[in-house]
């Protein structure tokens, strides 16, 4: 079963290599994440599977919004360069600079196009293919034999319920044993949000005047989503609150909550999100996550608390992380629909 899936997985990778249209590449990528998610589930890791599934969806959405902003990006990579003056003025106002850039582009295109066309497919792919196969063979030759050393696995499985509590060993590791890693991972998300806001071009930090979703004309979609979005929100909170017992946790639940806000955007056409406030909230939540972790785990308090509080700690921590992730992805989504609007 899993081998069948994995063969399909490899096949998709080959599809991406051969594909030229960007929109199809992204669709293949989404299918790829879907298959990876199912394989992870079969490998006995529902938490990672859930994270992968949610992440695959969000990455696909971001790519597609990106293509929607620049429609020429959607199709052929070679066509993705229709440079007409009236449609989309570049940043430089000066006419001469635009002309210079145009000339330079023409030159660059001629140079690279000449190179692309000169080689046939065989010439282009033969040497890199052989090189990759060589690396693969070398890798396989030196593959270390022997069984996996189960030292830490056994330690964790036997001790996590006593040390941390709960029933999910993965959450226990994620929130207690290796909470230091988790903090940095939350930090990466904070940085990503700030970076996306800093680096993308938009007239204002507020999303005022963002693009309405125009889903309103799709009556079926709107009425169905109106029902679904409540279930999505509920499921998100379910995952967060039960992260220590079943699969799921703060991160996965947070993504579901962000998905609820996306549904809300689609259904009600609400795009005037006070982004500055959400950013502030996200960072406050991050700060409180760090301080909470410092107080409970880093100071060693958790070992002196009765087991009930371990559960409380995990629920609060999951909740904070979930809130942070939800805010982060919400900002990312709204920022993506706001930037470079036409």
């Amino acid at each position, binding site marked *: 079963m899993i081998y069948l899936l994995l063969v399909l997985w490899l096949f998709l990778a080959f599809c991406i290599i051969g594909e030229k249209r960007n929109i199809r590449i992204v669709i293949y990528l989404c299918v790829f994440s879907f298959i990876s998610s199912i394989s992870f589930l079969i490998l006995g890791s529902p938490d990672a599977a859930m994270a992968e599934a949610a992440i695959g969806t969000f990455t696909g959405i971001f790519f597609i919004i990106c293509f929607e902003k620049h429609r020429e990006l959607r199709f052929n990579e070679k066509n*993705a360069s229709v440079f007409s003056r009236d449609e989309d003025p570049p940043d430089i106002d000066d006419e001469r600079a635009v002309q210079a850039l145009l000339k330079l582009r023409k030159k660059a295109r001629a140079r690279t196009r000449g190179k692309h066309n000169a080689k046939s497919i065989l010439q282009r792919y033969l040497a890199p293919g052989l090189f*990759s196969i060589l690396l693969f063979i070398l890798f396989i030759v030196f593959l270390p034999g022997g069984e996996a050393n189960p030292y830490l696995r056994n330690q964790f499985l036997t001790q996590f319920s006593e040390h941390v509590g709960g029933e999910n060993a993965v959450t226990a590791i994620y929130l207690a044993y290796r909470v230091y890693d988790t903090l940095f991972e939350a930090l990466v998300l904070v940085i990503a949000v700030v970076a996306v806001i800093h680096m993308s071009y938009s007239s204002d930090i507020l999303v005022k005047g963002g693009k309405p979703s125009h889903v309103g004309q799709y009556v079926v979609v709107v009425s169905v989503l109106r029902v679904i979005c409540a279930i999505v929100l509920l499921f998100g909170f379910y995952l967060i609150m039960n992260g220590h017992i079943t699969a799921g946790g703060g991160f996965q639940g947070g993504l579901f909550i962000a998905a609820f806000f996306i549904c809300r955007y689609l259904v009600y056409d609400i795009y005037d999100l006070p982004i500055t406030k959400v950013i502030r909230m996200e960072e406050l939540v991050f700060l409180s996550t760090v301080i909470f972790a410092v107080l409970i785990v880093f100071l060693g308090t958790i070992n002196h608390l009765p087991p009930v509080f371990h559960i409380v700690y995990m629920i609060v921590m999951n909740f904070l992380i979930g809130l942070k992730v939800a805010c982060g992805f919400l900002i990312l989504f709204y920022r993506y629909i706001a930037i470079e609007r036409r």
Partner: protein
Amino acid sequence: MINIIAILMFFISFFGLITSHSMIKSIVFTVLMESAVILFFLSLGFQSGIIPPIGVNLENLEHVADPLPQALMITAIIIGVAVTTIKITILMSFFRKFKTTDWDEARILSHHHEEDENNND
């Protein structure tokens, strides 16, 4: 066996990286590379009929999956998506400015000040 598939995937995406001219494809291939490594980690200690490390009294069970790689890989997945969003944003800013996603063209365009100076010398 699964780890060999993961390694194969790793090098397929490596092949993609060294052949693709499009920035979008390169970003996608780094995502695939990450997936390959994640699959490798999760397949450590795999056996058929494996069950997830959730529940009580796991210590008596033989077929419980290793929880540590799973926790590590959740971290890796999140870092991966954060980096990917940053990459997409840079790509969009870049495309807005230069209207191209081709690596070679982008290189020539973004270095053109230097090139001119070199030609003048």
